[in-house]
């Protein structure tokens, strides 16, 4: 039995099991282009919209990073190939095709902002969450479809505002993605105001999304889909949604206050006696720069778990599916995710040990930070143990999922020294932090997201992505990611500061030979290696981009459940029609019934009637 749902008449005549519609959307009357692809309220279309837009933003953020890496490796040297274009588009800040320190700061701030708020979060939470969550819980759509559409449009608008800010006089925001005051208010560009307006839009979007997700998961679970029968992916999205719901508003509050500082010239974050350019600033003063940091990191830290939890959810699904056995410690995973979600709200000030906020507060946050590593380790351990004794099927999604495990492990473990104030005081402003954070998010989360794209692509299109090029994509990305980020640990430990536009040249032994602890030539040389590895990493994404679009029409055709998975998202027609299910699915078992003894196949779908039970008349419930 391939799929239980197919025993019943199709939901609609038009909804053939193997659709030729590339975007998984069927209607009675053919809706127009705008109706179908832009103003759609179907969670699957919205998920794909989020996916494509956030992937594009990730590519854009990657290019910003490449330009920065060039500047770090070759400070002041005009950028090859792209230099003249930069000068033409951005003017003075990119004079002679070289990147000025101001422009470097802009790129740094916008790389962080775009990657986090316009790239990874929308892809991990909004795109996969939208497409997969309702399918997994057996719902016809999200609880509030129109709100869903609105949240995508607000997100898109926020992205546009961020992009536009590159082209205003003075350029985009330069105060880092953390936008610390008073720097964020005193830099003479309106980029920061654009950044804040963009952030308020993005926050609004994710609030609407979070409300929608939580309501959907609580209200629209299919009959029999009890809490402990939900796939771990759904749990991860559920916790993520709560984090977004409760952690983002304080940043919105902070954003409003900083916007007031920038536009209405208030002094929420500007201290008394603030001097700008050697002169006393014309502000009333009395504000607190530390307040901004508290409000920012109250979001900022939970945000890390917004980045990582959906990734763990994706990896869990793929690991269970490809080891062909139940996840090890499903309940531990669920409770750990809930515990992480709760604890993530009381660890934020471990980003602020350097601010001099006091030993007692630092002690509290060191303690909570060490505690939060426990559930994270439990999750990772459960995923590792799930591999034990499985007959592992290696395919592209599984490769990326397997790559995620050690990469996230490195990212997590190197975070421990940063959680302790004594070590953090030295490491905090160095490349060590960059390396740590990127190991968590780049080869960590982003690998999981790639895994998800390869995994659910057949559900979205009815075709598989090319396996060979998928593996090329994986092995090249895996190699170059590590060549990019591993040397940064060494640079950081040697004391290379992380926000310098010259890549540390002014602190190098070559420039200041007599200085104590000047950066040795070997450490400076790594900048060159990282640049070339980053370029190679960019080239390694080409197979993915081509594969993604080529496979929509030319990939290998597959049936509804090509991975032979148990969860409900695979028990629908492919691509799922509007309304998703031919019949409301009735869940009768847990999410990972793989290799059940005595069963004909090595997987038992969640909605397959229990053996011996008479076939139910599914219509009686409606």
């Amino acid at each position, binding site marked *: 039995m391939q799929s239980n749902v197919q025993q019943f008449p199709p939901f609609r005549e038009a909804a053939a099991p193997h659709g030729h519609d590339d975007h998984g959307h069927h209607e009675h009357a053919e809706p127009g282009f705008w109706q179908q692809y832009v103003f759609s309220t179907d969670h699957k279309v919205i998920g794909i919209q989020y996916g494509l837009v956030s992937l594009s933003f990730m590519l854009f953020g990657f290019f910003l990073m490449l330009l920065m890496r060039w500047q770090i490796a070759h400070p002041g040297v005009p950028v090859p190939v792209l230099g003249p274009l930069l000068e033409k588009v951005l003017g003075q800040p990119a004079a002679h095709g070289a990147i000025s320190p101001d422009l470097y700061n802009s790129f740094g701030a916008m790389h962080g902002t775009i990657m986090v708020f316009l790239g990874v979060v929308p892809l991990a939470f909004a795109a996969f969450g939208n497409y997969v969550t309702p399918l997994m819980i057996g*719902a*016809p*759509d999200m*609880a*509030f*479809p129109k*709100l869903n559409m609105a949240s995508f449009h607000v997100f898109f608008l926020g992205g546009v505002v961020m992009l536009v800010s590159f082209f205003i006089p003075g350029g985009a925001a330069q105060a880092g993605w953390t936008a610390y005051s008073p720097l964020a208010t005193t830099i003479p560009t309106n980029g920061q105001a654009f950044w804040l307006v963009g952030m308020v839009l993005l926050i609004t979007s994710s*609030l609407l999304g*979070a*409300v*929608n997700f*939580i*309501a959907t998961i*609580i*209200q*629209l679970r299919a009959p029999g889909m009890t809490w402990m029968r939900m796939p771990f992916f759904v749990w991860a999205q559920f916790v993520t949604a709560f984090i977004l*719901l*409760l*952690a*983002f*508003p*304080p*940043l*919105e*509050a*902070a954003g*409003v*206050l900083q916007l*007031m500082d920038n536009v*209405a*010239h*208030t*002094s*929420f974050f500007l201290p*008394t006696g603030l001097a700008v350019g050697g002169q006393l600033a014309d*502000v*009333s003063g*009395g*504000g*607190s720069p530390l*307040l901004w940091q*508290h*409000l920012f990191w*109250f979001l900022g830290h939970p945000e890390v778990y917004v980045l990582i939890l959906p990734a763990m959810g994706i990896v869990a699904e793929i690991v269970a599916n490809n080891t062909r056995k139940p996840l090890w410690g499903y309940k531990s995973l669920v409770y750990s995710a809930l515990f992480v979600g709760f604890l993530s709200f009381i660890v934020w000030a471990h980003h602020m040990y350097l601010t001099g906020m006091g030993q007692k507060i630092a002690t509290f946050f060191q303690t909570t930070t060490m505690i939060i590593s426990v559930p994270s380790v439990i999750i990772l351990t459960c995923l590792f143990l799930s591999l034990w004794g499985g007959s592992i099927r290696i395919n592209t999604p599984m490769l990326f999922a397997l790559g995620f495990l050690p990469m996230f492990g490195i990212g997590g473990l190197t975070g421990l020294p940063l959680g302790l104030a004594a070590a953090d005081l030295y490491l905090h402003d160095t490349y060590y932090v960059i390396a740590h954070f990127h190991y968590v998010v780049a080869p960590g989360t982003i690998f999981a997201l790639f895994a998800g794209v390869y995994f659910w692509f057949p559900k979205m299109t009815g075709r598989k992505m090319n396996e060979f090029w998928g593996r090329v994509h994986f092995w090249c990305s895996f190699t170059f990611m590590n060549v990019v980020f591993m040397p940064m640990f060494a640079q950081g430990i040697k004391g290379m500061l992380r926000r310098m536009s010259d890549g540390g040249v002014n602190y190098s032994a070559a420039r200041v030979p007599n200085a104590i602890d000047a950066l040795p030539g070997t450490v400076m040389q790594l900048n060159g290696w990282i640049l070339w590895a980053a370029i190679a990493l960019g080239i390694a994404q080409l197979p993915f981009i081509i594969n993604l679009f080529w496979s929509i029409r030319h990939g290998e055709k597959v049936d509804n459940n090509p991975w032979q998975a148990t969860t409900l998202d695979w028990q629908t027609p492919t691509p799922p029609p*509007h*309304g998703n299910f031919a019949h409301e699915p009735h869940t009768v078992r847990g999410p990972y019934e793989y290799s059940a003894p005595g069963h004909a196949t090595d997987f038992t779908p969640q909605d397959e009637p229990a053996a011996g039970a008479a076939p139910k008349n599914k219509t009686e419930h409606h």
Partner: protein
Amino acid sequence: MEIPYTVQNRPDTGIYNAKLGIWLFLASEVMLFGGLFSAYVLLRVGAEPGMWPHGWLNVTLGTVNTLLLALSAITTLLAWAACKVRDFGKFKIFHGCTILLALTFLGIKSYEYHDKLIHYEIALTNGKFADGHLVEKSKDFDLLKKIGTVTLHGHIVEDRRELMDLRSPEAQAAKHEDITIAAADIKKMGNYGPRHNTFTAIYFTLTGLHALHILGGTLVIFYFWGPGSRMWKTDPERFTNRIEVSGLFWHFVDLVWIFLFPVLYLT
């Protein structure tokens, strides 16, 4: 395709979708205003001694506004109750009152804002401070070119600190009269807008954000009272739910004011 539990409660959760949605939204609103109130606390605690203003706001107007919102909470509840017993006429009356009360609130709020924006503090070249409401500026008044005069209704003090606590006996006893000041004698002039000091900044921001919530809530209630009330004929149960959900939001906005009023007006 139909989404379940848009009107009826889901049996095991005992709630319909929109009601759950609004409660979740309100949870995020609690965090939003929670962040702002925390900012207020930190800024006030960190203020220089003697530099946090007291008695700058009109307690009478604040009390009236508090009562207006309290009344509107009652009419909102009655409007929903009227829907529950299927009395459309009463619904119209009660929510009509809600809208009028809300608009009166916003009217009083704008008057208070206006009062602050025409209130000037002028640092004089002799080191003293003139403080009062603007009566008039001479036609040729230009601060940069140092020509013309400005007339305030207020008083002149030696030290800015005297302007901070308006509830003190000295401040109560101060005599207010029309003062005309030449532009040449002015070192710095500014109104009591958001940039005046931390208190006006947080006052305008908090009450402004709250007023936006009032405005948004009023628009939604007005829509359900006017054009949106057509749903009463086709689906009264769903319409009643809408009134309940918008009412929940309205009660939250009232509740925020219950915190704002003592924090800003009474301390």
